[in-house]
């Protein structure tokens, strides 16, 4: 496979806050900001930009003074709101040869707070996005159980539910970054991470409905897509905090996220969170499905491969400033990013502006919840000198996010992508004297 990155697609992920190649709508929006002066020179392109609203938005003419004309009538949107026509952040697909087995990355630098808008949650599908009528969908639970059962969506919604915030990260997040800095933006390097509020029923509730037999140790989850995706999950995990979810951020989960039902395994690699979930088979051994043998195993330099590497280890990344942005000049910048761990809460985050020589504690802007990302920030007064920005996460187990060199020393740097999965190394962004920010290995 040719080393490719999200940037190859000529993607709008370059659309950073101070992106040197910001598009026309961005200039319009930015009037009055640091790049606002440029919009005057682009007056003629206003009409061009007006022709097309970004995905999820509708274009409306912009009045000279919104206080002098009536706005749009109530409910003119049909009863379901879209985003502002000036908000352009989108997911970008990684250029795999086949569009049906591919992934798209979350524009992390465009997010605010810690929750990922459902429409920007990263995607990884192995057979496209199925269209499923919930009235015809059910969940079968069988195998080493007392009495096998079929649960309709109505049954499931009658059950006691839990609502919890958790991140999901694909274990392939950053796979292009093992050997050399490849993706230009944080969307390319870290965009297979998203955080949502999930609502659903604990697996333990289903376990009591069907009864578990002695000796059961694994559970197969199976999806209802064209890949009929399957993964084997340790029963212990399922009983600890495994959830069968139908809600995401206050509404039904999106089709791309498994509508009407998905498995949610806090802190586990994304592929195990089976979407379009239709079946759970309780067993006394793992099934050794294609996705847990051929894929999602980590080949070490000595030729042996790690299997069932399910936990996503502690990780963090600065999203502002980040790759392909341009700082307009020396002065104050609120460095900001995300930190997360699949083994529990984030305990602390440190930030370095000198490539890891000195570290300072960052502020956690959102509550540290188990297996949930936090937003961190760090006040930085930039004097205009070259700088290397890094962040490092420590989770509540005391594990400290390692450097890439530490991971390569353990796992090897063979092949184009080393051991491919589970790169949780410290990320470096180099700020040049002219304010441009680049992905580097420091």
């Amino acid at each position: 496979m040719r080393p490719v990155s999200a940037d190859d697609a000529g993607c709008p992920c370059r659309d950073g806050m101070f992106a040197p190649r910001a598009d026309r709508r961005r200039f319009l929006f930015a009037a009055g900001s640091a790049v606002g002066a440029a919009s005057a020179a682009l007056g003629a392109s206003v009409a061009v930009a007006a022709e097309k609203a970004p995905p999820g938005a509708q274009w409306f003419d912009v009045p000279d003074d919104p206080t002098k004309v009536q706005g749009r009538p109530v409910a003119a949107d049909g009863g379901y709101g879209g985003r502002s026509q000036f908000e352009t952040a989108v997911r970008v697909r990684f250029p795999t040869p086949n569009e049906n087995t591919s992934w798209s990355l979350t524009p992390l630098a465009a997010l605010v707070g810690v929750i990922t808008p459902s429409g920007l949650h990263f995607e990884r599908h192995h057979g496209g996005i199925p269209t499923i009528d919930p009235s015809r969908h059910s969940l079968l639970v069988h195998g080493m159980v007392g009495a096998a059962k079929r649960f309709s969506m109505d049954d499931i919604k009658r059950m006691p539910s839990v609502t919890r915030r958790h991140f999901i990260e694909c274990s392939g997040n950053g796979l292009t970054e093992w050997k050399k800095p490849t993706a230009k933006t944080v969307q390319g390097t870290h965009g297979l991470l998203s955080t949502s509020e999930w609502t659903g029923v604990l697996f333990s509730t289903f376990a009591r409905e069907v009864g578990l037999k002695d000796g059961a140790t694994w559970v197969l989850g199976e999806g209802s897509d064209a890949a009929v995706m399957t993964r084997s999950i340790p029963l212990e995990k399922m009983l600890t905090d495994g959830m069968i979810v139908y809600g995401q951020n206050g509404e039904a989960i999106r089709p791309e996220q498994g509508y009407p039902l998905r498995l949610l395994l806090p802190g586990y690699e994304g592929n195990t969170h089976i979407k379009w979930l239709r079946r759970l088979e309780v067993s006394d051994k793992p099934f050794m499905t294609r996705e847990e043998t051929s894929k999602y195993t980590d080949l070490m330099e000595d030729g042996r491969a790690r299997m069932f590497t399910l936990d996503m280890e502690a990780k963090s990344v600065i999203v502002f400033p980040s790759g392909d942005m341009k700082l307009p000049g020396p002065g104050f910048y609120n460095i900001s990013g995300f930190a997360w761990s699949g083994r529990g809460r984030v305990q602390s985050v440190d930030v370095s502006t000198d490539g890891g020589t000195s570290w300072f504690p960052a502020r956690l802007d959102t509550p540290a919840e188990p297996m949930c990302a936090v937003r961190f920030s760090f006040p930085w007064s930039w004097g205009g000198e070259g700088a290397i920005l890094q962040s490092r996460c420590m989770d509540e187990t005391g594990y400290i996010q390692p450097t890439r060199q530490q991971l390569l020393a353990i796992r090897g740097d063979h092949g184009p992508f080393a051991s491919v999965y589970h790169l949780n190394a410290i990320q470096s962004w180099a700020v040049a004297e002219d304010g441009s920010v680049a992905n580097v290995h420091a």
Partner: protein
Amino acid sequence: MFTPNAARLALILIASLAGAATGSAQTAGDTRLNLGAPLPADQLAGYFAIPPDGRGLPQGSGDAKAGRVVFAEKCAVCHGDKLEGNPQPGFGGDKLVGGRGSLATDKPVKTTESYWPYATTLFDYIKRAMPFNAPGSLTNDEVYAVVAFILAEGHIIGPDDKINAAELPKVKMPNRDGFIPDPRPELSLYK
């Protein structure tokens, strides 16, 4: 915290206080909700997941000769006539043979032949997800045959070997012993 158990208990209390409890009697000792419908075995007939011991493999059989025909007709467009893979846009089928002995080198080539630990996975995956443009459309005989073909092309079984429910779990893949459990957290990170 408002746990499912506590929620259920609360429901029972409310229901019984209001004298509105109908249906089956619930006691604190029985924590079931009695939701969901019984699932008789015949409703599970269309579902499968085949572990390495072969449990659940269906009847039927096939060999590489029959499999070559299936492959040429239904797989080669995306996986190549010589199973070499097809990275062209719109196809993207993996390379299925070769790479044996490469895993510990600087250019590891992971294929069914070189990397997969279990032959049962091949049956399971092809029956569930291939051909990519018509998943789940092969008969069991066709799946056995094309599995035999891929295994024979990888020199894992003989060209005339028959593959069926009894034989498939016995096939020893070259990288059968190549996998280790997750050793993380990596101890050297605590130095």
